């Protein structure tokens, strides 16, 4: 096995990657941690204020509310996207022609930018001129973006519409790598479609579920452009998630120090969440599911 080390490319090949990562990820993160201990309004130099921002964060009811909203939002987005993406992905993995045609239509949202999707749904759900108004009936009375009790779910729906195709693609690719012999054996043993899905497909897709879940959880936790465009955090503060609150504090209120504190909190939560998922699912101990094949 010693020849593998010999054939590895030189460590210098990693330099550009490390350079970029250091310059655009590590360095800003260090700066943000520094700024979280300062007061900086953009005009003067940052002034160290000790842990003022942190105690403010712990005592700020708006921050608590938006953190709670972020967590709820993340969990809802995960719970909505995972089953849909999984089912469609497995379905789309079939080689039938109609499935290929329908899936390619279904992947269309992947081609649209986040801003375009948010504007599209904003127009469709407009309380005066939207499609829901044209449709009439009970749908027209629901204020999808204007009712504080509904708005958060509307955003989750739009995110689901936008991101399910991407995760479907992951599942489709993974489902296609499951050896057909497994299904053949199951068929001989008399297992029906449902049993085959439950006992073969699902276990074989375990690692894809983990990958897709981490992407959804961390992605949703730090996502804010859809909310910014679709609801602007409103009505009131009904959809003001932590990243949006951070953005407003930093770039509308010009309290860069306090905004940095929220940014650090988000980094911590995001890292903790992905570590937790990996630990719970024992991703590290993963080995091939296809041993012997």
């Amino acid at each position: 096995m010693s020849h593998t080390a010999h054939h590895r490319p030189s460590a210098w090949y990693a330099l550009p990657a490390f350079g970029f990562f250091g310059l655009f990820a590590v360095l800003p993160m260090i700066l943000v941690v520094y700024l979280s201990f300062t007061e900086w309004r953009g005009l003067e130099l940052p002034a160290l204020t000790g842990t003022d921002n942190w105690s403010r964060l712990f005592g700020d009811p708006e921050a608590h509310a938006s953190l709670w909203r972020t967590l709820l939002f993340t969990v809802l987005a995960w719970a909505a996207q995972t089953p849909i993406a999984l089912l469609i992905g497995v379905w789309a993995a079939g080689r039938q022609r109609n499935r290929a045609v329908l899936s390619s239509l279904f992947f269309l949202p992947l081609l649209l930018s986040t801003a375009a999707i948010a504007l599209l749904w904003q127009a469709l759900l407009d309380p005066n001129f939207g499609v829901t108004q044209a449709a009439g009936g009970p749908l027209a009375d629901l204020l999808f973006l204007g009712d504080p009790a509904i708005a958060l779910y509307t955003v989750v729906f739009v995110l689901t519409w936008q991101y399910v195709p991407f995760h479907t693609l992951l599942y489709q690719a993974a489902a296609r790598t499951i050896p057909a012999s497994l299904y053949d054996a199951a068929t001989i043993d008399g297992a029906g479609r449902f049993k085959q899905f439950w006992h073969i497909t699902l276990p074989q897709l375990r690692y894809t579920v983990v990958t897709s879940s981490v992407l959804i959880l961390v992605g949703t936790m730090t996502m804010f452009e859809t909310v910014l465009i679709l609801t602007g955090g409103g009505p009131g503060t009904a959809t003001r998630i932590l990243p949006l609150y951070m953005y407003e504090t930093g770039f509308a209120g010009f309290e860069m120090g306090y905004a940095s504190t929220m940014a650090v909190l988000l980094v911590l939560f995001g890292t903790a969440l992905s570590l937790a998922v990996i630990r719970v699912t024992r991703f590290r101990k993963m080995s091939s599911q296809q041993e012997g094949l």
Partner: protein
Amino acid sequence: MLRRSFKRRQRPQRALIATGLVVATSLLAACGTSGPSDAGDGGITVWALQDDVLNEIEKQSIESFNTEEGGNATLQTFGNDPYKEKLRVALGSPNAPDVFFNWGGGNLAEYVQADRVADLTPMLEENPDLKQSFLPSVLDAAKIDGKYYGLPMRGMQPVALFYNKAVFEKAGAEPPETWADLMSLVDTFKGEGIQPIALAGSQAWTELMWAEYLLDRIGGPEVFQDIRDGKPGAWQHPAVVESMSKITELVEAGAFGKNYASVGYDVGGASTILAQGKAAMHLMGSWEYVNQLGQSPEFVERGDLGWVPFPSIAGGKGDPANVVGNPTNFYSVSAQSQNQDSAKKFISTQLNDPEYVQALIDAGDVPAVSGVEDKLANAENSEYTTWIYELVKEAPNFQLSWDQDLPADEATFMLTQLQKLFLGELTAQQFADSMAQH
């Protein structure tokens, strides 16, 4: 196009997305070489907002300064929201522009307190003709602690109550003169199955206009001036609570219909229902006229778009002739400028120049310059522009929009609290208390 140019400062939504991207770049750029003048060569850099119509006019004024006054000025323009970030960073650095566009009020005050802005008072005192060539209530919007820090460089944007004449005629109603009129009109139009007042409530600054006028009418301008000056307990003045409860009253009476919380101004929601006769009134900045002209030209050309001042309130302390809104935009001179004399010469010779004023009028602006009645009367849409001009000229006080007059962090918080008030999540008293605690 004009609609965009008239519009806002704190405009949220779409432009902000771009900001996110641009900010990073501009922060970096501002550290480096954003090119203002070298020491003492007399060259000055003028920063302004990107605007298809206004930029042409600004360029002409710079050319005439360069040729007629022997100046050496260059214009640099930026998008609305990125501009705020860029200006903030630049004014904090040695690379500040010599002359910069701004909104007056609290925003400018912050720069003044950080000693970034040149005092123009001596220049105005030496040159009384210059001072008198601008409308006093507008000039005052750039007056901080008794000193002047900016000269008006474009049109005035007071807030007025627009209404649909056809809808009023059909209901046999007259536009409101008093608050009582307005409240009874709410019932009239509800009876007709028409939304009494259009409101683009997904953008808090449209709701802010109601708060600004109510407080001015009820308590007079001094109440807000105390708030802006940060006097303790100013937010808890009884007039604040009374004004905000009037908002709650309006909302509960159904004046804004049910769906206002997700109606947007940028997407034309509120303006369109007014033009279509689905709503009877709309409180909006003076840019609404140009906006309607662009989006629903038949509505304006039929003569169905009407406008009146905000109603008076019985027993209120404020003069019913007062207005609120955006007095205008200003050019200010940077205190770090190496060529302050040239910069001051630019703003003192070009902004009241007849050609510049005429160009603004031709573009549909109503300049804050004295004695332009005849010019307005000879230009297009003279009925409307003359009315706006007289409204501001006769106003004893022109209150700048609160979100511009307050420090940025307080303004951001206030806008959120105001949306909660309109949603019924906060009472008037809770609004005042939360603002006082912030």
